[in-house]
């Protein structure tokens, strides 16, 4: 089994007249960094809720590591798959930062000593080690998001989903979390990371990108390929990644830049060489 996630003919509607997700099928390879993008209302967040069994499909199936997502398997699946949602106020459970990070660990019956170690380790990784005794009301939105992220990362999961999980962080904070995720992916090459995001630049850097539009898969594939179909991208009101925009504008003036160049840093180096 090479797929961390298999979605087959997935449909979902909140009410009878309106289909929110229509016949979605896709696969996510183990160890991949996958981005899911699309507008508000495209069905991204509904998909996230389905993947975590907060709601159940109207029809179709989801397999996590070849295990069908249903009532019977959900306990097992939650030991391998975790999600961080966008609004940290809806997911702060503990009365203090340390309680909140420990919550998931407690559910897994981790011994107290190990738990204390993990809480310390992960609070440090998200730069919240000095706030362990603070209550949620004393924290900013971004700080609460860091706590939610630490709580999930500490669980040693195989599949991590971020649903706009860094939307309230400042750029330094976003970079910190990106580094942290990369570090964890290097340590465990089988760790699958799925990011639901509006950030086209992030999508451009991922291994695989799925674009949702009006509840259907609009395009999927390697970012270099799908974003190059510019008219299609613009048709649904998405932006073209900055690096690609520059590359295309230069191409028109007969200056050609290699496909491998994906970050603005590499692009600047290439232009200046």
């Amino acid at each position, binding site marked *: 089994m090479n797929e961390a996630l298999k979605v087959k003919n997935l449909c979902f509607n909140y009410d009878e007249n309106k289909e929110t997700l229509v016949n979605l099928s896709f696969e996510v390879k183990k160890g991949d960094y996958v981005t899911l993008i*699309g*507008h*508000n*209302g495209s069905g991204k967040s509904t998909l996230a809720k389905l993947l975590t069994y907060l709601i159940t499909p109207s029809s179709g199936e989801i397999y996590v590591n070849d295990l069908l997502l249903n009532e019977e398997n959900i306990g097992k699946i939650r030991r391998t798959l975790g999600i961080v949602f*966008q*609004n940290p*106020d809806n997911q702060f459970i503990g009365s203090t930062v340390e309680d909140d990070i420990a919550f998931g660990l407690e559910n897994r019956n981790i011994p107290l000593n190990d738990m204390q170690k993990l809480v310390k380790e992960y609070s440090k990784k998200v730069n919240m080690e000095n706030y362990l*005794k*603070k209550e949620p009301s*004393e924290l*900013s*939105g*971004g*700080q609460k998001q860091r706590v939610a992220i630490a709580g999930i990362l500490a669980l040693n999961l195989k599949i991590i989903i971020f649903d*706009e999980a860094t*939307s*309230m*962080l*400042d*750029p*330094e*904070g*976003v970079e910190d979390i990106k580094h942290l995720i990369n570090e964890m992916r290097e340590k465990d090459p089988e760790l699958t990371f799925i990011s639901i995001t*509006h950030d086209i*630049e992030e999508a451009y850097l991922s291994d695989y990108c799925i674009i949702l539009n009006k509840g259907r898969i609009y395009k999927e594939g390697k970012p270099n390929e799908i974003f190059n179909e510019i008219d299609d991208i613009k048709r649904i*009101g*998405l*932006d073209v990644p*900055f690096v690609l*925009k*520059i590359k295309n*504008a*230069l191409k028109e*003036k007969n*200056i050609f830049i290699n496909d491998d160049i994906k970050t*603005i*840093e590499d*692009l*600047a*180096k290439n*232009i*200046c*060489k």
Partner: protein
Amino acid sequence: MQIEVNNVTYTYNKKRFDEFEALKGISLKIDKGEFVALVGKTGSGKSTLIQTFNGLILPTSGYVKVDDFIVTGDKKLKRQLLKKESKEVQILNKKKAYLLRKKVGMVFQFPEYQLFADTILKDVMFGPLNFKVEENLAKEKSINALKSVGIDESYFERNPFELSGGEKRRVAIAGILASEPDILILDEPTAGLDPNGKKEIMNLIKDIHKEGKTIILVTHDMDVVMDYVDKIFVLNDGKLLEETTPNILFNKENILDYSLEIPTFYKFKNLLKKYGFCKDLSKINEFNELIDIICEDKND
């Protein structure tokens, strides 16, 4: 001067073991009709500061003056100011707080989570009714507010929870506009919206500004700052670091020290400089100009 912030400090949990000084002596001024942004990293004090503007938080020392209202929690200072200022000036107290809150409308982060009534119109009417506006007039004001944010009349009797995220946010903003504030403060109004939703909300705010209202944004979104804002206050660690404009700020050599998310365009310009691009980029503020100068450089 519409808003005057005078050496304001604010300490959370004063005299407790976890006392924390969020504002460390801030002074700034905002004129009537300005479109300004407060920026700075999380924990810089932005959200605390705006809450002093409508008296949700009273400064521990120093004061905020909004038109004729003085907001402070410093008793000694209150007495001094009352002696010094003209007769129209009032010190904010509980009884008068609603007058200030009517003047200063505040749209919090994710305002759509605060919708609660069973119809959209009722939700928007809550504000004016709360400010003791008579029912028929409250309804009229609410209808105007909803129309101004582009919510169609056919929606008025529907449940707000049937709306999409962007629509809910517009209803929430209408709920504040219905009370006809002079000053509108918005905390992260574009958080969680896609590029189209962002544009919609920001164009709406731009229209509200054109009507003569003062707009104060708290935001991490530097693309928004670049495209809409006239003046920026950069906060850091509870202090005012700088008062500036978008063009000046993003062209600064040491912009990275500010830990702001600068627009990709300016990030790229900085990287070009870093890797030794030969031509002067300081006057380049448009995409096409940048492409042209890169071509020129390559062809030299």
